[in-house]
């Protein structure tokens, strides 16, 4: 059974949903508190859940990116462990420079809470290994700061290196190149704004999220 470290910061609020999703696919979650360090070898992979860490002060994810637990997560990344960030978790991984780019305020300035369709561009070796290139999936978004930005040079770099994870079928927030999720250069770290943990059963409106865990 795979052991999945689930990070918690003050203001994280999707942690129990992630916990449930991890258990549902048969893995064992374990909490990782923001003030603590951990040994990556005790785990198989890591998830940074969504929420409003540190109340989104300064910039979304900016303060969480410098919490003690992130030092251990950086070590885990360097060792090649799979790391998955969802929504605020994606913002935290970008601010920690474990992923390229940054998430800015939605171009129309409104908070978005709706279902979206995504296209899988490149599958991740652990989170979404059951997904195929070009596959369409359906799940919710819920964010104010989901407008993905990278410079033109970096966009070309991540496109050439096949680091784009998934894109929006209809761009809801002004993200560069419709990007909803990206991977790092080594493709062990991945982040996305949509919430697969909120699409685990048909009664949730979709069970496509199961394929991401």
């Amino acid at each position, binding site marked *: 059974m795979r052991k999945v470290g689930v990070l918690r910061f003050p203001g994280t609020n999707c942690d129990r949903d992630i916990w449930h999703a991890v258990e549902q696919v048969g893995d064992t979650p374990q909490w990782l508190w923001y003030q603590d360090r951990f040994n990556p070898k005790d785990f198989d992979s890591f998830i940074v859940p969504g929420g409003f860490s540190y109340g989104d002060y300064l910039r979304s994810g900016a303060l969480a990116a410098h919490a003690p637990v992130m030092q251990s997560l950086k070590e885990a990344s360097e060792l090649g462990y799979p790391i998955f960030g969802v929504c605020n978790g994606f913002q935290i991984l970008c601010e920690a420079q474990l992923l390229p780019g940054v998430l*800015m305020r939605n171009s129309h300035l409104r908070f978005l809470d709706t279902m979206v369709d995504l296209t899988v561009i490149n599958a991740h070796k652990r989170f979404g290994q059951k997904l195929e290139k070009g596959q369409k999936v359906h799940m919710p978004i819920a964010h104010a700061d989901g*407008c993905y930005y990278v410079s033109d040079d970096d966009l070309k770099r991540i496109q050439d290196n096949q680091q784009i994870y998934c894109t929006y079928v209809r761009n809801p927030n002004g993200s560069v190149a419709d990007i909803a999720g990206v991977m790092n250069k080594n493709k062990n770290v991945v982040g996305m704004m949509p919430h697969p943990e909120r699409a685990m059963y048909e009664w949730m409106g979709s069970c496509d999220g199961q394929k991401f865990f």
Partner: protein
Amino acid sequence: MFKFGIRILPRPEVLDTQGRAVEATLKSLGHSVLETKVGRYVQLSIEAKDIAQAQATAKKVSEEVLCNMLIENFEIEVLK
């Protein structure tokens, strides 16, 4: 102790959504405003042996935490 003000603004090539919204409101009130940019201002008090060391600390924390260099620029001013 040395005091600094850090002025953080969006980079010119990045869409400043807040600035754009504020600008639209100012224009709708009939003000002849050409451009509005919205950023943030941070005051720091730093303990250091001299001003050069304090300035180096202010620059380091601005680059590493206060500012995201992909989308923002900052200027440091010395405060009395």
